[in-house]
């Protein structure tokens, strides 16, 4: 029933990929070698973590595949190595390569999940504080100050040590991964809350927010659908740094014996378990996961730095 007059030549929207290729983000990415190398390495890490069970030659979680007679074998380029174990074995006879792949998987998973929890709490609290202002803002931000006055490590050590003492090491070993995510997630939410609040304070006085209020939209709709999308770039930047921080926290806790159990080692607990053997010559148990951890954290920080430069509105207005 459409008359020819109503037929409009509406141009189709270019595909998402085509639009992305036109963005400032993409252009500066193709010009920045550090960003490209970092991103490449990060993708490599992510793939290795995701497909660890397929890539790893052994399953380090399977006690049947471990032979104590193979313990402390050096990497393949050293004398006395067994060609079956590319990067040597640890004190229990587990293949280092497989253990590190699984460890990266656990470290990354804890890091990303903890940051998702931080982001959820931080965005919820920061958005409410910034949007409602007044007493709500004062209350929530003082909570954030209190949370920040306890260092992450202190909170984590106390909570995890009490949990371990109260419920026993066995239950702890089963729940360690969730506990770590919870503790790291809850301890660091003020970072997000402050960032979001600052952006919301800047955005909420803009006229498009008034326009939305004049339309009669509710606070929730205005906060989540109108203001939040305009505060996403700083969130993206701190997320990369926060994932790196969470991985470091997890590694530190594991090193202190409060993180992942020896049977499911993360990178941190691998470093820790190798520490006892470092002076007996078996340096690879500590050094190799150490290198993997340092490179992972470095790559994420470099990506975060690059993103911060690109998304800085003072350098580029987008």
């Amino acid at each position: 029933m459409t008359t020819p007059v109503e037929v409009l030549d509406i141009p189709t929207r270019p595909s998402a990929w085509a639009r992305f290729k036109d963005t400032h983000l993409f252009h500066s990415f193709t010009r920045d070698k550090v960003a490209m190398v970092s991103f490449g390495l990060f993708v490599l890490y992510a793939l290795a973590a995701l497909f660890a069970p397929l890539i790893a030659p052994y399953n380090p979680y399977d006690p049947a595949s471990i032979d104590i007679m193979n313990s402390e074998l050096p990497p393949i380029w050293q004398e006395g190595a067994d060609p079956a174990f590319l990067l040597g074995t640890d004190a229990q006879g587990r293949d280092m390569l497989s253990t590190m792949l699984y460890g990266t998987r656990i470290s990354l998973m804890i890091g990303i999940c903890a940051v998702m929890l931080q982001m959820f709490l931080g965005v919820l609290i920061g958005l409410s504080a910034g949007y409602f202002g007044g007493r709500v803002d004062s209350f929530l931000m003082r909570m954030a100050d209190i949370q920040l006055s306890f260092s992450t490590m202190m909170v984590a050590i106390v909570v995890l040590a009490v949990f371990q003492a109260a419920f026993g090491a066995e239950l702890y070993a089963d729940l360690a991964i969730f506990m770590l995510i919870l503790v790291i997630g809850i301890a660091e939410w003020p970072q997000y809350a402050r960032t979001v609040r600052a952006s919301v304070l800047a955005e909420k006085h803009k006229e498009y927010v008034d326009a939305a209020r004049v339309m009669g939209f509710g606070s929730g709709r205005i906060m989540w659908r109108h203001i939040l999308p305009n505060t996403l770039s700083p969130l993206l930047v701190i997320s990369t740094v926060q994932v790196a921080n969470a991985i470091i926290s997890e590694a530190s806790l594991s090193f202190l014996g409060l993180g992942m159990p020896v049977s499911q080692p993360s990178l941190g607990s691998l470093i820790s378990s190798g520490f006892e053997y470092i002076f007996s010559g078996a340096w690879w148990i500590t050094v190799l996961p150490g290198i993997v951890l340092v490179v992972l954290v470095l790559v994420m920080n470099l990506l975060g730095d690059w993103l911060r430069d690109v998304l800085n509105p003072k350098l580029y207005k987008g």
Partner: protein
Amino acid sequence: MNAQQPILQVRDLEKRFNISGDFLDQLKFQGGKIVRKQENVHAINGVSFDVMKGEALCVVGESGCGKSTVARTVMGLLKPSGGSIHYNGERIDQLSDRAVLPYRKKMQMIFQNPYASLNPRKTITQTLEEPVRFHNPGMSETEVKDKVKAVMFDVGIDPGWGVRYPHEFSGGQRQRISIARALTLDPEFVVADEPISALDVSIQAQVLNLMMKAQEEHNLTYLFITHDLSVVEHFGTRVAVMYLGTLCELAPTKTLFATPRHPYTQALLSAIPRLQDHRPNHIKLQGEVPTPVNLPSGCVFHGRCPHANDRCRQEVPKLVPQSDGSQVACHGVEEGRL
């Protein structure tokens, strides 16, 4: 239709902004005692006016006189500190967010800065469709799309541009989109807060004509906030002149421009630059606008008024209807001195 029927009635509207900060900031040490001191900016002090159906009431005044505050209070963006606002006879300034929803549909607002009033992360179609969907939950997808398309045609925006983001448009186009957003809900009453002051002069006329066209086609009533007197002459049915949060004079446009009564209005009008300005007879006002924190007693204008006497310094003048249909708040006019 009855032209004399008021659509909006504002009575003794007051708005104060507290500027003394939180509780600890309010404590001051004075004369050996700790006292709690609160300071307010008196943005609006007892403003009363009616907006008649179908007219364009222009509110003029210099910066900081409270005209935008009046607009925002009328729209419910600010809660009034005193007084009342009635829309079609119903009091709307004390309604809850939910109860005010039906009025949101009828009252819409156009904002000053077209660069800030559109959400940068939403395409034009998203911006325009959201209010339609929100207020008409029963509408089908095609009805919503047709409605938005029709409004975009109305304001001279190609519906094909709907997939674009606001930063891809010029100021004038954005202001058209803002107008379209206000019109999508078929309002009766539109508050325009300096809608053209951020635009290029050549675009100002376009947008103004568009607003007048919309007024005719949709039978709109405008409350038009501006500081541009030439726009008022062109656009307004009646004019309200504000000074320091009070209404000085409210008159039909022709009457006001022909015979301004209030001394402030006279000074304001004499400041319009004219082409044949051989002998400029600008009335030069002495002094500065007083601070709205400590309002002067009596008539707020008395400090700068050449005709002020003792009564002006003590008694606040009321808006008094005059024989020519205007209303003037001035003791001098009331006494026949001026």
